[in-house]
């Protein structure tokens, strides 16, 4: 009991200081910070309408490269933590019990729609809100839907690894091309086209598509690993 009381005491102190600090920051006021530069420059220099994407992919592209690696490492780490040597004749079944007809039919119809939406989101990353991460997440929900509703739906890990690695390599090599051309790493060497045009923004579009594929495959892989290892039989013998 004293532990709870002690925790509440600490949290109140920390809370007090946080509130005190944040209330010194006026809400909704325009501050002179780096953000204004991005707003003026991104449509002009990069011809990219969604300035957040401009920042995420080009201005602070290194963050995103790091970001994608964190996701890649999480998938690899998850794989190594949940790793179980494959016993012979083991039936890989995901969902515990078959779902009803309605869901199966419904998911059959919905699956391609969701993937289409996901594709749209990360292809138009630099035009409309959203981008690689959001599109990838949408596609991952599509595969999750199928995994839950069908017992025998199999996500081939081989394919996932291929997509994942190729997308990562595309991202990194785009960066390297900038370096090979004698300019800086992740330089936007392609022509940037006009504003609000699909091909505008030089390599930003391509990178975000690669990120989209990578995120989609990684999230599906993560969901699949956790589902695969969490079945009742798996718990017994471990």
């Amino acid at each position, binding site marked *: 009991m004293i532990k709870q009381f002690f925790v509440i005491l*600490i949290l109140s102190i920390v809370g007090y200081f946080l509130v005190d600090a944040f209330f010194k920051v006026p809400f909704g006021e325009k501050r002179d910070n780096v953000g204004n530069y991005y707003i003026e420059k991104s449509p002009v220099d990069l011809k990219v309408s969604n300035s957040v994407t401009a920042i995420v992919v080009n201005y602070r592209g290194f963050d995103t490269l790091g970001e994608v690696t964190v996701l890649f490492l999480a998938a690899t780490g998850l794989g190594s933590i949940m790793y179980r040597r494959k016993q012979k004749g083991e039936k890989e079944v995901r969902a515990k019990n078959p779902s009803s007809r309605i869901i199966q039919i419904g998911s059959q119809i919905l699956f391609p729609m969701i993937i289409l939406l996901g594709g749209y989101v990360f292809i138009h990353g630099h035009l409309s809100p959203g981008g690689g991460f959001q599109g990838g997440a949408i596609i991952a929900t599509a595969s999750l839907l199928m995994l839950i509703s069908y017992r025998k739906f199999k996500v081939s890990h081989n394919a996932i690894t291929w997509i994942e690695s190729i997308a990562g390599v595309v991202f990194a090599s785009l960066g390297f091309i900038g370096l090979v051309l004698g300019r800086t790493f992740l330089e936007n060497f392609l022509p940037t086209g006009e504003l609000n045009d699909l091909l505008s923004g030089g390599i930003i579009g391509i990178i975000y598509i690669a990120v989209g594929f990578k995120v989609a495959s990684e999230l599906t892989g993560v969901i699949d690993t956790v589902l695969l290892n969490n079945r009742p039989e798996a718990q017994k013998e471990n």
Partner: protein
Amino acid sequence: MNSLILLLILVFGGALFSYLLNKFLPILRDGFVVLLMLLVNYVFFTMDSSTQIDFEMGGIHLQWAFTSAAFLFGIIVSILGLLSIIYSTAYMKGKDRLGYFYMNFLFSIGSMLGILMSRDLISLFFFWEIMTWSSYFIVIYSGKDVDKRGLKYIVFSAIGAYSMLMAIVIIYGFTGSFLLTDIFDSIFAIKASYQLAIAILLMIGFGVKSALMPLHVWAPGAYSGSPMSFTALFSGALSKMGVFGFALVLFNLVSNQNWLVNEVIAWLAAITAVLATFYAVIQSDAKKLLAYSSIAQLGYIVIGLASGTYLGVMAGLFLAVLHAVFKGTLFMAVGAVERQAGTTDMTKVSGLIRKMPWTFTASLISIIALAGIPPLGGFVGKWMLYEALITSDHYYLVIMVFLSSTAAFLYSYRILFGLFLGQEEPEFAHVKEAPLPMLIPMLLLSGISVLSGTFPGFILEPIQDAMVVFGFDSRIPNIEWWQLTVLFNSWGDKVVLQNVMIAIMGVFLIALAFITIKGYRKQRYVTTKDISSSGEIIQPEDNMTFQIDFYKPFERAIWPLLKRRIDDYYTDLGNGLEALFDLVRRIYNGNGQFYAIYVMAFLALLLIAGTKYFGF
């Protein structure tokens, strides 16, 4: 190539090479090691004393040079080193891991030479630490309860070394340099309290190595536990590094207004001498007995140094050289007995005079020197010590030293009688005389102690040069080396019994020769079992040597003094600390959530404290 660097390269390189040699060509090892030491001695003695090197290392200015004081101690180290190496070639025959033994042996000799030659505190500490861990590796080379012994040794040496490091760093903080020359003339500018702190810390550092009373706990175990060939060097030369340090510190770093330091050291040494002698008397194992006697002798040396007068320091240094000589012989003799008879427990072995005559003569001479009986060196040293103490009116000290040197008779008699005289034990009938490479060093050293008795001049000469370094430059004017003796002195006006002393000397020699030759043949050797036991049948296994409770009454008399040994205080302190540390361990109680709470509590504490720190 500067001969100083050559010396160090020879020793340290030789050490590593001997380790490799032992791995690949073991037969060459003994020869190589002896040859190496001969070469080292040759380089050491043929080096002209003005060679000096200055160089930068890690941003610190280091300076190496052999001052005359260092030369004096260097003599002890190199000669005793050579003889104990020769001795150990025979003593260690048949033992395993000899490469490891010789490497550390040579490392300690090299580091001792390094200490002596370093004219700045950093290289002094550098070699001091190498000496510590190389001698540590030999202390734990073999024998029983290695753990306890080794740990005691390393802990006390670490405490000593690190208090010395603290003093060095404080000196650097105030004077900005490590060179001894700069320090000596700028030390007195520092605040008196810091001077005192520096002196005390250095005293602890050197006190541990020269086994002063509260810090002596490691010495009996280390001296008796390590192989005898190394103990000869250990107690003969290694402990002299502590004495060298004392000499360095007492005269240059301690200003005359805190003379109290000298007094305290003198008293500590006196207590050490008395108590160590009492402990030595009640020991039944020869090695332990000699270990305690070493501590006592070191006590005398430090009293000599701490007395501060010219004669006292001379007595201290003279005793230091003598102690190396006769203690080296005694440890070698005990080592010979241990090797030949298998045990040094005086209650078991006795009557070895007939089987090991030469070892007996060597230990007889060094016992006489140790006890301070006139014709030999011990007397000269003790005499000078008494004179110094009386002239500088330390009357209580004189009484303490007198008490402990008379008690010294007891244990010197016991070791002589215990091992060699008395009836023979039947089971030691097979004992043969020690091999030649063991005998030569013993006899050589006992020869030196005889020589230093009658003609101490040839030792006092380098001592006088050494004392100039310690700030006593009133040399005794132009006297022949043979005249520089208390016996034939035209210098010390205290004793003028020249011809009487010669007569005594002559009588002593003749009597000695007559007794040994005449009595040697005709004796009927009686074993301890051959006594009338009024009808009881003596079983072969019961132990009839009368050595068992040799000094029981004496022991009962001084028992209240020795009841609560100082080791027990240390063990209690150790256990108390361990219990406390166990409580600290409880902080990490294994629950991840508690660790997270610690983090948040620390954050909250910091935020509150922040108002004081960052003024918000």
